[in-house]
């Protein structure tokens, strides 16, 4: 073997090596781990909503605000907590609001971290549409191994993201009809809403994210950009 070919070979080797180690392979865990955690998360936060709503009198600032649009919900829920265990449906709603706030916050923080982790090595995202596309393509592929199925926008700050087979809903079902099932599924969807909002917030876009409709296992998210006060 001539020296030049040896050098070439060597060069190829090192190139290959650098390609395979960078981007470094993502660490993996069993998919079931996340599924279990995802299910328990809502249950645990519901328990903690119950707990915090009973001690809210002493500490109304508990639901410290990281969000603009939900801080009102949160603090209202925490200041009107019941002290007895048999609570009327009105306080149930409050608990639900507190739960919403918490699940959404947990997702929000996850979203922020995901954005930091995955946006650092890519070119700058020029505008909001680019950022939403980043969510639909990059993030969705990282999390679900697929892209969002459909993205629509009115070019005035509203984006509709539709996933026809949302992975976290695939194994959910109910025997008492679609309406009930949809209602029970809602708390689980506040989590991805929070994730999306967290990602966009981290990229500099203030927005609200809501579920537009669900038809298990299809799911549609609506992003509304909050216009900064002029």
């Amino acid at each position, binding site marked *: 073997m001539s020296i030049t070919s040896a050098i070439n070979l060597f060069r190829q080797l090192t190139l290959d090596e650098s390609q395979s180690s960078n981007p470094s392979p*993502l*660490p*993996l*865990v*069993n*998919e*079931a*781990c*996340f599924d*279990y*955690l*995802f299910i*328990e*998360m809502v*249950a*645990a*936060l519901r*328990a*903690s*909503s119950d*707990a*915090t709503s009973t001690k809210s009198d002493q500490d109304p600032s*508990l639901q*410290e605000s990281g969000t603009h649009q939900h801080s009102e919900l949160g603090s209202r829920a925490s200041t009107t907590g019941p002290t007895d265990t048999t609570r009327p449906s009105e306080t149930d709603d409050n608990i639900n609001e507190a739960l919403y706030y*918490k699940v959404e*916050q*947990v*997702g929000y*923080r*996850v979203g922020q*971290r*995901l954005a930091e*982790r995955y946006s650092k090595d890519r070119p700058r995202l020029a505008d909001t549409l680019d950022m939403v596309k980043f969510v639909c393509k990059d993030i969705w592929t*990282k*999390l679900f191994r697929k892209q969002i199925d459909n993205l629509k926008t009115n070019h005035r700050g509203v984006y509709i993201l539709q996933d026809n087979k949302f992975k976290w809903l695939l194994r959910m079902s109910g025997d008492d009809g679609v309406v009930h099932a949809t209602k029970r599924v809602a708390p689980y969807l506040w989590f991805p809403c929070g994730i999306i909002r967290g990602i966009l917030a981290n990229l500099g876009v203030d927005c609200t994210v809501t579920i537009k409709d669900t038809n298990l296992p299809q799911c549609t998210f609506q992003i509304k950009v909050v216009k900064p006060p002029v």
Partner: protein
Amino acid sequence: MAKQYKTLGEDIWKNRVETINAELFIFTYGSIVAQLVKDFEDYEQVNKQLEKMGYNIGVRLIEDFLSRSGWGRCTDFKETMEVISKIGFKMFLNIAPTVTNWSTDSKVCSLILDENPLNDFVELPLDTQHKLWYSNILCGVLRGALEMVQMQIEANFISCVLQGDDISEIRVQFIRHLQEELPNADD
């Protein structure tokens, strides 16, 4: 014998489970812990909640474990712990903690977590020193899963690298075999 567990564990990890990006799992867990700390403002309570979450997970996860591994009855607690480490932990978190520090009556031992994906990216505030056991969910998982196979145990963290300790160590104590309760007859 020990090698057999290891081979089976690796085989299951490679061929019989779906894997996902660990970061989502890690971030989500971290975010949940942060939320619980905020809600309860008491590390004792947070530990308890995490353990409870783990317990609920454990009682479900054991089915998954048994069906995927096809593992039968273990002869003694020592074997159980080896199986948990080499097959159980391997299959779910892709780690295999070291089982060591057995008591003379073989009822208490330690799981040393040389690596722990939950700890990735995590730094705890100083005031949590030996009060918040960040990965306490694992203790609950052990308790829940073993209870489903009629073993009552107690598991506790006694040291954790996040607290500045050299190693992360879960102390596991075997308490007793639970009596198998026959379900009520249908007729």
